[in-house]
């Protein structure tokens, strides 16, 4: 009697385990098909500070297309997002901080190599630049890049190894030194000597500067700085525009492999193309990115002062070269860190 009870319980358990396995197998199978079942969903994988912009644009986009569409957003550090897409995150659209990151995805065969030529302005619907955020009244009288290397100035900038924004900062500083007849390497060394903390991302650096009171100047994206000033608690800061900066271009691209698999190509292409329309460009400017449309830009000259801007392509030989020269493993930045801290 006891024996048969034990047996039946055993069978019950086995049955339950088998059912569980089948269940999970089925849900796994369903997982693979979910893309096709809901073709009206797009995933835009982006970097940190574009959150607000794309929330606004997604609403606008939904009114433009005839079929109802849901656009999901994913945000994080640009490099991390790139890795996620390479490792299999089903992004229909990528809108990242650097062309270099999209190139890395293209190198894995997920995006066609000529992605930058498919849309106007190298597939960059908006741009921004690097500015200084200083404490109210500018107590250390920081006016230009040259002031950042004075002794006793704390400069807050994230680590270029982990932050796309920090690479723009680095290139802007380097470019200023070069155009002003200084030895750029020596200037960069002096600059990073004044950096007390290397955060991993732009938002982390903003927190270190604004909330933790570290340093005297934050090298920031112009859109982040303007956003920070809009916040009521950040009234203790002001923006300083240096004499020269860099045209920071965060590009967008459709992920060919994914849209072809999911059958969302038409929708995804409409999405990125729509970013260049005038109403979208206005939205871009309202979210503190500089619009590429000249007509729209003319309406926002109050927000965005004229500034001399370097470009990665013409002044640094493109991202590939800039990356190899400065940010790759063992390149200038790594060597500098060894020199400064060892």
């Amino acid at each position, binding site marked *: 009697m006891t024996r048969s009870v*034990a047996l039946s*319980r*055993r069978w019950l*358990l*086995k049955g339950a*385990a088998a059912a569980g396995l089948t269940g999970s197998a089925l849900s796994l199978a369903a997982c693979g098909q979910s893309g096709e079942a809901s073709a009206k969903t797009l995933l835009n994988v982006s970097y940190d500070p574009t959150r607000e912009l794309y929330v606004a644009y997604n609403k606008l986009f939904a009114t433009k297309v005839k079929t109802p569409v849901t656009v999901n957003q994913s945000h994080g*550090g640009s*490099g*991390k997002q*790139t*890795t996620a897409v*390479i490792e299999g995150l089903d992004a229909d659209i990528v809108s990242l901080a650097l062309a270099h990151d999209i190139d*890395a995805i293209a190198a894995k065969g997920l995006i066609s190599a000529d992605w930058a030529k498919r849309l106007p302005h190298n597939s960059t619907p908006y741009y921004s630049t690097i500015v200084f955020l200083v404490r109210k009244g500018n107590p250390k009288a920081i006016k230009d890049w040259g002031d950042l290397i004075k002794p006793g100035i704390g400069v807050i900038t994230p*680590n270029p*190894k*982990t932050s796309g924004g920090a690479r723009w900062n680095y290139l802007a500083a380097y470019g200023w030194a070069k155009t002003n007849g200084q030895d750029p390497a020596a200037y960069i060394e002096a600059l990073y000597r004044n950096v*007390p*903390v*290397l*955060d*991993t991302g732009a938002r*982390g650096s903003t*927190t270190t500067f604004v*909330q*933790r*009171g*570290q340093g005297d100047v934050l090298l920031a994206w112009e859109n982040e700085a303007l956003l920070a000033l809009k916040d009521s608690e950040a009234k203790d800061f002001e923006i300083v525009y240096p004499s020269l900066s860099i045209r920071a271009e965060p590009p967008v691209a459709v992920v060919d492999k994914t849209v072809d698999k999911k059958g969302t190509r038409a929708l995804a292409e409409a999405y990125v193309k729509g970013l260049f329309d005038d109403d979208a460009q206005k939205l871009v400017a309202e979210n503190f990115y500089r619009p590429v449309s000249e007509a729209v830009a003319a309406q926002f000259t109050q927000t965005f002062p004229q500034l001399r801007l370097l470009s990665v392509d013409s002044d640094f030989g493109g991202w590939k070269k800039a990356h190899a020269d400065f940010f*790759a*493993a063992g390149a200038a930045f*790594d060597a500098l*860190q*060894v020199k400064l*801290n*060892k």
Partner: protein
Amino acid sequence: MTINATPTPGAVPLATEGYKPPKATHKARVLPGFSLSLGITLTYLSLIVVLPLAALLARPWEHGLDGVWQTISDPRVLASLRLTFTTSLLAALVNLFAGLIVAWVLTRYEFPGKGLVDALVDLPFALPTAVAGVSLCSMYAANGWVGSLFAPLGIKIAYTPLGIFVALVFVGLPFIVRSVQPVLAEFDAEVEEAAATLGATPLQTTLRVIVPSLAPALLTGFSLAFARAVGEYGSVIFIAGNMPFVSEITPLLIVIKLEEFDYAGAAAIAVAMLSLAFLSLLLVNALQLLLSRRGRA
């Protein structure tokens, strides 16, 4: 019997007619379902632990042994390993004492709000580590509550290795408390009474009777806290300052390698870390074995 022992072809040797050997496995075990549960255990462990670790071990060899060695022997990697392991060790040691005291107070004394304090111990388990990092940073930065007390003394906590230590103490505490607490609660009061009647002072009872029997649990907690500290990333990167050679932990270097899309390099550092951690745990386990044998003798 001897006749039966010479096997005739086709017959089962040594099996006398009408006799069935007892099925030892099911009758002898108290708990049912051994074969099934062992099967599940092995499958589960393979899927969750063994296979991912095997995948990790397979990854670094893209550039051969030389590539792995070059990555690991980089002075910056070595500096970060040194920092990670020493701060983890120190944090676990501090928690060993602090955790014992916390567990002691929570099991041996009654006081108002005890339940709340007991629940507080688990908070570092539940809190997302990034949140812990941000809140620790706001406390220990030069303009924070605690940091501002130390700043006049010239001691910087946040953005230095000291900050890393604070974060690691925070995440490690529950491990010690929670592994010691049940042992302490089960501890037989008679043993203490016996010690007292034999003339031991309270201090002697504590040091010579209670602590030795707690040693295995303490070591378990210690190794868990240490292991957790070694792998800790989220809370540390906010408070560390992340300066290479000074306050850069190994997990951050792994992330940096990943940002360079150097998966092989990242895996190489990870494997180095894994081996070191495994070695330390092995050492602690050996120590534990020794202690528990001594306890039994």
